[in-house]
């Protein structure tokens, strides 16, 4: 298989075989060509060269959900395959079909829920159900666990494993090597459009795969320097609400020179917390920042002016102008304070320090991989001398190398005296970076741990809502 996009040879002579009953993991850095390969196999992208032979229907679950937010679950699942009664849709039959499908595969979901009201984890179930309704013999999953909580990941792979046992061939495109080792039978590593290696999973290890992916040793995280902590942000009885998330009565501090991790399953109030700090939703309670209050009616601009910088969860909609180039995206948020003549310098600084590829300020951001897009967002945040950084899922859906770089830069910002609030659904990320860990469940803070006293089991139980 070969496919070229402009100057980029995305897929460069790849052969891949999937077998019924097998979970096949496809791993590789950002831009290695994994998603393109999956899209070609599905038929969404036409290859320049090569062919796909499939024994039956091929299904694909995208990394970025392709759901119609305003429609109900059953409408999305059965779109264009609705059961008919004469000229009309047989709604009762449709509902029942979705309900049966959901219980068959253990993917509990309310057929009548409107998709836009659902948390990400449930939306993904809807995506999966939509493909399963077509009874695929080959199922392609692009970064399926990027937005799932630890407990959801295990049950997700149980579902996928059952599916494989019934004879479906499954391809999982992923960065998460722990999942590759735990759940796949075969693993193929891609780099720069080519297949570097293909193993039985039982015959390799996460370290070996990681080295094959990056073509060398995996970069270590930046060292944590000793810092003198100083008061920065005091949160007192904070309550806030955003579209799909609510936070009640949160009280905690973030000090300069430390990383405070917020551990929790998605949809437990994290979005409301980040949005209240960004100044995009109102709040009640008190936020004292550098000794002076932040007000509920503050604009995002006033928060930026005081050195509060938020890395939003959804880089594509909340952080980037996808059709613009790297330079104009790097200065977004600083367009008032930075002279126009210096936009290019700012872009080059981010490209250099954050290893953005291609290293071209004029490259259009939509054409960059997710990891490189995220490097731009994190890079522009951390190069603008922030005092308080709120990093919400800063490594969502990006590869090991890019994630290590982002985490290292966050640690360096802490070393340099910034206060960092790291909100993440991935416990490993929090344990690797945080000085203190707060646990959030059902919109309230339910636990606090110092780095020295982190108890993984206890934190997991608190996240799941067990006191």
């Amino acid at each position, binding site marked *: 298989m070969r496919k070229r996009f402009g100057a980029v040879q995305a897929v460069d002579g790849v052969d891949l075989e999937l077998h019924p009953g097998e979970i096949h993991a496809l791993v590789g850095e950002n831009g290695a060509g994994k998603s393109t390969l999956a899209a070609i196999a599905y038929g969404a992208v036409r290859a320049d060269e090569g062919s796909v032979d499939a024994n039956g229907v091929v299904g694909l679950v995208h990394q970025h959900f392709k759901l119609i937010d305003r429609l109900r679950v059953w409408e999305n699942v059965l779109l264009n395959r609705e059961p008919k009664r004469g000229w009309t849709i047989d709604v009762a039959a449709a509902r029942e079909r979705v309900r049966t499908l959901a219980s068959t595969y253990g993917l509990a979901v309310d057929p009548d829920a409107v998709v836009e009201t659902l948390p990400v984890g449930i939306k993904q179930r809807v995506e999966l159900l939509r493909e399963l309704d077509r009874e695929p013999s080959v199922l392609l999953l692009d970064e399926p666990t990027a937005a799932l909580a630890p407990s959801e990941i295990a049950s997700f792979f149980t579902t996928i494993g059952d599916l494989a046992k019934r004879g479906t061939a499954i391809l999982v495109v992923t960065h998460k090597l722990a999942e590759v080792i735990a759940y796949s039978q075969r693993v193929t590593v891609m780099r720069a459009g080519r297949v570097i290696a293909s193993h039985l999973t039982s015959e390799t290890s996460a370290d070996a795969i990681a080295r094959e992916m990056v073509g060398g040793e995996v970069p270590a995280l930046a060292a944590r320097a000793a810092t003198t902590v100083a008061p920065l942000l005091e949160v007192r009885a904070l309550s806030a609400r955003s579209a799909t998330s609510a936070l009640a009565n949160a009280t905690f501090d973030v000090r300069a020179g430390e990383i405070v991790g917020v551990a929790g399953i998605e949809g437990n109030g994290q979005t409301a917390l980040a949005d209240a700090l960004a100044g995009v939703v109102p709040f009640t309670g008190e936020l004292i920042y550098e000794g002076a209050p932040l007000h509920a009616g503050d604009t995002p*601009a006033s928060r930026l002016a005081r050195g509060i910088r938020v890395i939003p969860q959804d880089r594509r909609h*909340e952080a980037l*102008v996808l059709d613009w180039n790297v330079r104009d995206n790097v200065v977004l948020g600083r367009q008032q304070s930075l002279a126009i003549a210096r936009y290019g310098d700012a872009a080059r600084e981010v490209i250099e320090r954050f290893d953005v590829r291609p290293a071209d300020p004029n490259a259009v951001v939509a054409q960059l991989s997710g990891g490189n897009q995220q490097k731009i967002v994190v890079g522009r945040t951390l190069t603008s001398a922030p005092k308080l950084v709120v990093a919400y899922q800063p490594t969502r859906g990006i590869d090991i190398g890019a994630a290590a770089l982002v985490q290292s830069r966050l640690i360096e910002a802490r070393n340099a005296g910034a206060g960092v609030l790291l909100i993440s659904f991935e416990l490993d990320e929090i344990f690797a970076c945080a000085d203190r860990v707060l646990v959030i469940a059902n919109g309230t803070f339910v636990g606090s741990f110092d780095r020295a006293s982190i108890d993984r089991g206890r934190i997991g139980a608190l996240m799941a809502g067990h006191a």
Partner: protein
Amino acid sequence: MIAALRKGALRDVVVVIVVVFGVGSIAMLLAHVSPLDGFGALFDGAFGTPEEVAETLVQATNLLFPALGIAIAFRAGLFNIGAEGQLILGGFAAGWLGAQFPLPPYLAVPMVLLAGALAGGAWGAIPGFLRARFGANEVIATLMLNVIAVLLTTYLVTGPLQQGGGGAAETAALPKAAQIPDLIALAADPHFTLAYLLTPFVVAIVLAFVLWRVLARTVFGYELRAAGEAPEAARRAGIDLGRTAFVAMALSGAIAGLGGATIVSGGLHRFNTGLSPGYGFIAIAVALVGNLDPRWIIVASIAFGMLQSGGIAMQAEAGVPREVVTLVTGLVIIALAGRRVVANRRST
């Protein structure tokens, strides 16, 4: 979101040419006229004599002002369908104030043009304010305000402010001091003076280049484009979306209103109800064909200006109904909209 409107601009030009000549030919054949004769009459009518070239450029100018205004609003993500009303109100303010206060030329001309820009700007600011304050849909608001502008000015010049001779629905004639020179006068009497730098055509082209620079190279332009392309990202980057919507709509209206004032000061020399044969609507097509880029909008306005001025000659000389031009203009919009839907599907 705005990028979707602007994709595949170059191929659009091909689409426009195919539609104009293809559909135009079919319509002419249906009217039992050879397309060769019909288009011959069109070109001849648009460019045959210096006067006809001047008329083409005047029509282009009358489309260029509202098209530039529309482009500014569209680039901010706001579908300003109200350029027609903004242009009419601008023309009315210019005509009425200009006839009301006799001033020396160096004051009268700026006053007339400023009055037009302010009136159009105010008419654009209303939907901008409603959008910023209440989230009201600007498409509906601007569409409705068109109707209000037409009826209000018609009422004023047939009622309390009727100043035309013999009960004509118009304001009193502008004094010489409030008039700016127009190209038709230049074509009839080819003595170029420095005053011609103030002809609407020159003013509009200078304005187009200024707007192009403002969009591309100023913080204001940057924020306006960010709000149009990615509103949520813009909001989180500290851009006040409400303020941007208000300013963009006011500016958009002001440019259309200035266009109305130049028609009054440069051509009609008074306001009357026949000021615009729908310039503000045709200008939507001009702005889209010009890819919402002020430089290309200049080119598009000249092409549409040619259709406007040549259409009359086509009817007179070749017997092709002038409605063919209207038909072709409408189909261009539909063809472009269709092409964009297709381009969008392919890109995602």
